[in-house]
């Protein structure tokens, strides 16, 4: 069976985007005009109960036009790329802008910039198509069936074309590709889980991850209940990423300046363990770094937390200008690391631990209080008791109440940064860590 593969659909090329943007820019009567194109082709094979339940493939193009007249701005967008629809979208944006109140925070689009060329589109991902996704899904299902276990998961691949242009001379065009695999293995009531995302579909390591999830599900079968309280913990990378995601989302500079942020007054101060560094590494081969942001700004390597000290905030362009920040840092390819000697693996973290709760992943993490970044959430798909360097039992899932700003004040042991993907964060590289204290506040029924 031969699918259309790379023949379908024809994504917007650089030349087509240049033509489209020049069409809009020359026809616009506004002071400033900016055009953004996002054209995406993506597919997902989804399975549950050891069979495919959903198999989808779709292409969606979107063009958005923002115009301004004397600081009055409006944005209109469409998924219809015909000449008439593009003209109508420009006219709609102009109509909106002419009657919008002047925005005191308005800034013209950025000027021309030579964006870094990054390896964001891998040919093997671009041409993968439904047969490759099905092959991977079948592999995971087959492994689980052999063990008499149930598999539920997804294999996805996507290609996107992103373009940004303005009458200031700004022009950026980039192809981006991404593939992902996630799997939950059910052994009766017990579950194990694994997930991966990579620019290259060849790097998903489906077999290896399936075996890891199977092993975890089997180990989760005999579950005991532990009382609530404060425990030392070993957090696997997905769990660490879940906690840090909320810290990262709270780095907004405007909230900081208005004192409605957990970080108010703490810039250039130590906020976590002095050995922790958080940086954006868009050139890292295992991360999803991009050439430019949706605002038309270059994606940059930058340090956000340097040896525990908060060095950087997330600026919108107006706040950056107001504060004299010339280069706005980006946050799309994050790497968290600890200085010092890491242990080799999660297995080694366990071996060196006298007693702790090992957490594979958290689920439904939400802020309880944004003032101190107190979060809640549940453990999921693998929670274990570690004693004397060994996993001795699975334990029932806990709810926790903790602030990453508290629990990362001191890290006992850690690994080198590893891939972390969970249901609510994009891919990041973070270590697995052993923390001295973590507050579990209730226990659930399974």
């Amino acid at each position, binding site marked *: 069976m031969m699918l259309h593969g790379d023949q379908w659909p024809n994504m917007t090329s650089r030349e087509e985007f240049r033509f489209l943007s020049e069409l809009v820019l020359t026809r616009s009567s506004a002071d400033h005009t900016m055009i953004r194109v996002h054209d995406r082709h993506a597919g997902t094979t989804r399975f549950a109960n050891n069979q495919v339940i959903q*198999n989808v493939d779709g292409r969606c193009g979107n063009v958005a036009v923002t115009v301004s007249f004397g600081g009055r701005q409006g944005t209109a967008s469409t998924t219809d790329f015909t000449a008439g629809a593009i003209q109508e979208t420009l006219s709609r944006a102009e109509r909106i802008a002419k009657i*919008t109140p002047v925005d005191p925070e308005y800034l013209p689009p950025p000027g021309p910039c030579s964006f870094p060329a990054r390896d964001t589109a891998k040919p093997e991902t671009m041409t993968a198509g439904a047969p490759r996704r099905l092959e991977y899904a079948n592999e995971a299902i087959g492994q689980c069936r052999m063990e008499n276990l149930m598999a539920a998961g997804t294999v996805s691949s996507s290609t996107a074309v992103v373009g940004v242009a303005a009458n200031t001379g700004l022009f950026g065009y980039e192809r981006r590709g991404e593939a992902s695999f996630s799997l939950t293995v059910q052994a009766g009531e017990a579950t194990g889980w694994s997930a991966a995302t990579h620019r290259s579909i060849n790097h998903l390591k489906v077999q290896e991850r399936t075996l890891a999830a199977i092993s975890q599900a089997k180990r989760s079968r005999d579950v005991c209940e532990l009382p609530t309280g404060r425990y030392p913990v070993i957090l696997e990378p997905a769990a660490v990423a879940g906690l840090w995601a909320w810290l990262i989302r709270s780095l907004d500079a405007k909230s900081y300046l208005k004192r409605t942020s957990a970080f108010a007054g703490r810039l250039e101060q130590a906020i976590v363990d002095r050995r922790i560094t958080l940086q954006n590494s868009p050139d890292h081969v295992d991360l999803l770094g991009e050439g430019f942001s949706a605002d038309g700004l270059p994606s940059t390597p930058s340090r956000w937390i340097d040896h525990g000290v908060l060095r950087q905030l997330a600026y919108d362009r107006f706040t950056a200008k107001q504060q004299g920040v010339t280069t706005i840092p980006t946050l799309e390819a994050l790497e968290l690391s600890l200085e010092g000697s890491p242990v080799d693996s999660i297995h080694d973290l366990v071996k060196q631990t006298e007693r702790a709760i090992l957490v594979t992943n958290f689920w439904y993490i939400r802020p309880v209080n944004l003032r101190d970044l107190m979060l809640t959430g549940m453990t999921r798909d693998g929670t274990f008791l570690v004693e004397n360097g060994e996993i001795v039992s699975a334990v029932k899932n806990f709810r926790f109440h903790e602030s990453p700003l508290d629990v990362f004040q001191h890290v006992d042991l850690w690994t080198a940064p590893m891939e972390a993907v969970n249901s609510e964060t994009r891919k990041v590289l973070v270590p697995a860590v052993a923390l001295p204290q973590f507050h579990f*506040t209730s226990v659930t029924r399974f």
Partner: protein
Amino acid sequence: MSSPTWDEFAELALKRIVASGAEYGDIRIQDSRTQHIEGEDRRIASIRDAKDIGFGVRVLYHGAWGFAASSVLSLEEVPRVADLAVEIAKGSASIALEKVRLAEEPIHRDRVITPCRINPFTVPLEKKSDLLLSAMEAMHRQTGIVRSSASLWARRDTKVFVSTEGSRIEWDLLTGQGECTATALHEGRFASRSFGTPHLRKGYELIEEADLLREGSRVATQAIEKVEAPVVDAGAFDLVLDPEHLSLTIHESCGHPSELDRALGYEANYAGTSFLTPEKLGSFRYGSRHVNLVADNTEQETLAATGYDDDGVACQQWDIIRHGIFVGYCTNREVAPKIGESRSRGSNRADGWGSVPIVRIANIGLEPGTATVDQLIADVKRGIYIEGHGSYSIDQRRYNFQFGGDAFWLIENGRRIHMLRDVIYHGVTPEFWNSCDGVADRSTRRRYGFITCGKGQPGQSGWMTHAASSARFRRVEVIRGEGHR
């Protein structure tokens, strides 16, 4: 030459599906327009007007699904996408263990239109911007308010669904909403209070009836009171929950567990499964006798009341919980037969042309009781009255939950005394609903819509409405929602 009509596109797709030998297929063509005006700190931060047109083709071949979609609506693209959907379905069929069997549904040929007095897209933008600026100004008139936001949102969906079985349904649906939030600062602490109209399928009259200026002023006053309020002392409290707060509790602890696809394991890798497993149907005590939770996708103005779902099944009303016993699921044509039901409940919805429809929570509401809210409060010695949405989190089988709220008042000896801050309560779903000993009457019933209910892979945003009257729950565990620093 005139452009092809949507019916011509549909005919083209269905011909390819039928010729392929597939046993079922449908096409949805949808044109959506969304307008979103956002104000922040006394300025209009953005006005965005989005048009989104495209189509999705779904095919069942030898008992397995395939779906393909495109934003290019043309004579070349429609057959290509239909063929791709067939090819994908064939791929799925090649490793299928169990064939999908669809529950029977009569053929429907109908048109559904949202009744509306004022089309929100004809209301001048100047008028809308002025309203938001005035609402933010009203909030900032209160000393201590450091941040404000206000927004208006409207969407119109025109859509057609045509299936190989002969159904043809056309929709012209409107939805709107408006909201505002004030944030107060006091002694280095901040707190927010919000007002939002429900998301409803009605015109701009929804906004005009709401009075954002008055509500903006009220929430600003309450934000200041909230930030200065004493923190709650942890312990067991009786709770009286308002309809807006209950809408979220119902959504998380009843809506999601009653989705049959979850109970059957379809969402095991992401949204989770359900403690309401099929063997419990008809016997499991979910709540006290006061708890009657009814699914109603026929109530006018509510989000899931679209006449038909994206399976082409007519919207219905049915019981989920009757006198505290679990008696019904939300289903689609695929999963209904798996529990022996001959007809789908009509809860299969996609969030747009590019998404495949999946089982979605119906409009589930708590049936009114007989008391007044004052009577519910009068019988509380030590309790908390909670309004609105705050922090929320629940485990993947929907047992262990935690909720906050937007505003909290201490109740002592049957009277609301003063505001509290940082109130969080937690519990286990059936124990919580079994602690319900009173529901207020129909006069306090309110409806709240959800448009960001996340489910599915790739993720989709589901739409539904949850209605409730205020209700009382005895001895619920309350903790302080603040950290140690």
